[in-house]
């Protein structure tokens, strides 16, 4: 039952479909008057059910790539196709709609402090226009999935870092996204708690078929990923398949 609710149906039908396809992606920022080439030509395909870790040193373009995959930003050159849709052709409203297919998880959790855990999980559902009863039911189910059933009425300040990150993951899953997109999910929590988060991600990927894309410094996450993408100076240096089968 739970598996069906959490994973999009398309996953079952076309397990091999690309959820993200990146072709010749370049991103250049203008800092003052100097152009900064954050990404210098990236080609990458992410399939449904993948667990991908993107690693690399600071300034390698990880965050830029993450923002582009999350439809928060538009490419300077090249294409980012999310679920087959070219991001660069979309206007503001269409981008916002597309972001509902992306489950963002941030390093600093980015929960809304004044909202309770359950209300934070309900927020993307409210934004998508889901009714109150359904929102509540779904939020409670998701909090159960991430192991926080008893903490629904706590505010972020009353939760530990690990618990806050679980709430953030539950929130990211709320709208049945095509994939989870995590930015240093263990970067701000202690080692032991981090292991719990990694285990949760692995479980969501394996048991619920959720596609996971994670940008990280954390070698333990990379070890659990099916595929690891090493970025250096805005290019893919190499790719490995530590835990992957293909």
């Amino acid at each position: 039952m739970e598996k069906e609710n959490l994973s999009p149906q398309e996953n079952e039908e076309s397990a091999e479909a690309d959820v993200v396809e990146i072709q010749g992606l370049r991103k250049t920022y203008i800092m003052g008057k100097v152009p900064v080439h954050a990404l210098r030509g990236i080609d990458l395909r992410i399939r449904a059910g993948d667990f991908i870790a993107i690693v690399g040193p600071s300034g390698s373009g990880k965050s830029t790539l993450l923002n582009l995959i999350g439809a928060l930003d538009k490419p300077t050159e090249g294409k980012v196709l999310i679920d087959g849709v070219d991001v660069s052709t979309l206007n503001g409203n269409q981008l916002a709609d597309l972001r509902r297919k992306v489950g963002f998880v941030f390093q600093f959790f980015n929960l809304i402090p004044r909202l309770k855990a359950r209300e934070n999980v309900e927020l993307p559902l409210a934004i998508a226009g889901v009714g109150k009863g359904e929102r509540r039911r779904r939020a409670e189910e998701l909090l159960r999935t991430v192991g926080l059933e008893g903490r629904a009425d706590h505010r972020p300040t009353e939760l530990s870092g690990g618990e806050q990150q679980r709430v953030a993951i539950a929130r990211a899953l709320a709208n049945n996204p095509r994939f989870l997109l995590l930015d240093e999910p263990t970067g701000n929590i202690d080692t032991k708690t981090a292991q719990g988060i990694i285990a949760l991600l692995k479980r969501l990927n394996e048991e619920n078929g959720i596609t996971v894309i994670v940008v990280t410094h954390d070698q333990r996450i990379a070890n659990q990923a099916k595929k690891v993408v090493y970025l250096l100076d805005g290019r893919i240096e190499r790719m490995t398949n530590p835990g992957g089968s293909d």
Partner: protein
Amino acid sequence: MKVLDIFSYAWDGIRLRKLRAALTTLGVVIGVAAIVALLSLGEGFRVEMTSQFERGFALNTLTVTAGRGFGFGMGESASEFYLVVNDTRAINQIDGVSMATAVISKSVSIASGNRTRTVTVVGVNFTQYSEIYSSTFLAEDGTIPLSPTNDTIVLGARIANPWRNGTILAKVGDDINLTWATGPISKPTIKSYVFHVAAVLKEIGGFGIGGPSDNQVYIPISTAQAIFETDQVNQILIQLVDSSQTTIDSVTEAAEALFDDKVTVMSPTAMLNTVSSVFSVIELFLAGIAGISLLVAGIGIMNIMIVSVLERTREIGILKSLGMKDRTVLIIFLSEAALIGLLGAVVGITLGWGLANVVSRFGFAMMGSVAGGGQTAQVHGTGVSGGLTITPILTPGVLLGALVFGVATSVLFGLYPARRASKLNPVEALRHE
């Protein structure tokens, strides 16, 4: 996002910063309260004045006064031209006039026993005057003589009984002294006459503009001519054959032509309209002043919201990363402004209404005497407030207007910060500390 969810989210935003929201709202409260208090008092004053005027009204009458002046015919009568008693004859020839009668009024003092009062004495033809004002020129005690003797005097209700406490100045059958001072103020000639009280009028109420008043005394016009040694009249009253606008217009035109446009012919309705429009201008002026305070409140809202958008940049980034549209962000911030405006308007209306009631209860004596003083043309120097009480009136228009104005100002000034919030780049917003 559903409308209710948007409002609930916006409300949460306000609740989080209670003191700040309260202070911002206070600006709106003060502005709206000022508007409501001033307008409801103004409206109450206007209605009170109008009803006071209407009490002495006879719709089928016109008044002719010398001079082309504003409003009541007072003011610009400095010209050489004046009306005399015999001018009624010519007016009587005009089609549509059933009767014309002259009125002479002067300020005099009357004395009965050891009590003295300054009053307006009005010289009229009792027969004609009581025909024109058949509903107000009525005797409570005694009878108004149709062929009066020269020393006949009729007292207004508040002249006979000015203190309303059982002590009366004079009653029917009493003799009273009427004293008139003429000549230069430094060396006046004092003339004194004895009159016999024939009747005391029924209480009329109001100011008696253009008609009998509680604060006047009446003597035969021939006596007035004799003691004031003049034919000059203050006004000529015209009774029309009917009160239709056609008759009013044609007689007005004919009467003005008769005196080479050197007179002002006013109908009671026109007089009322003039008074009413004067009050409209005053009310508008007051509302304008109050509006400025609302403008200041709007700037306060804008200021606070710009700060709020800055503080919540990261939150806006989160909302956008969760798929919220720019438009929804805009609406959330506008809703916050609208809620502050609504709250401020509701509190402000309540406060303004309360304020208006307090002012009307404790401040009416002062305002009443001001109003009384303004009517010197007829209620000369009586110094009586005329029992003027202002009940503030909150018309649905003012109520709705204050509400809409409060909310609209808030939304208008919230527009810029809200737009700024909606246009934030999500990547940069998320990076914001």
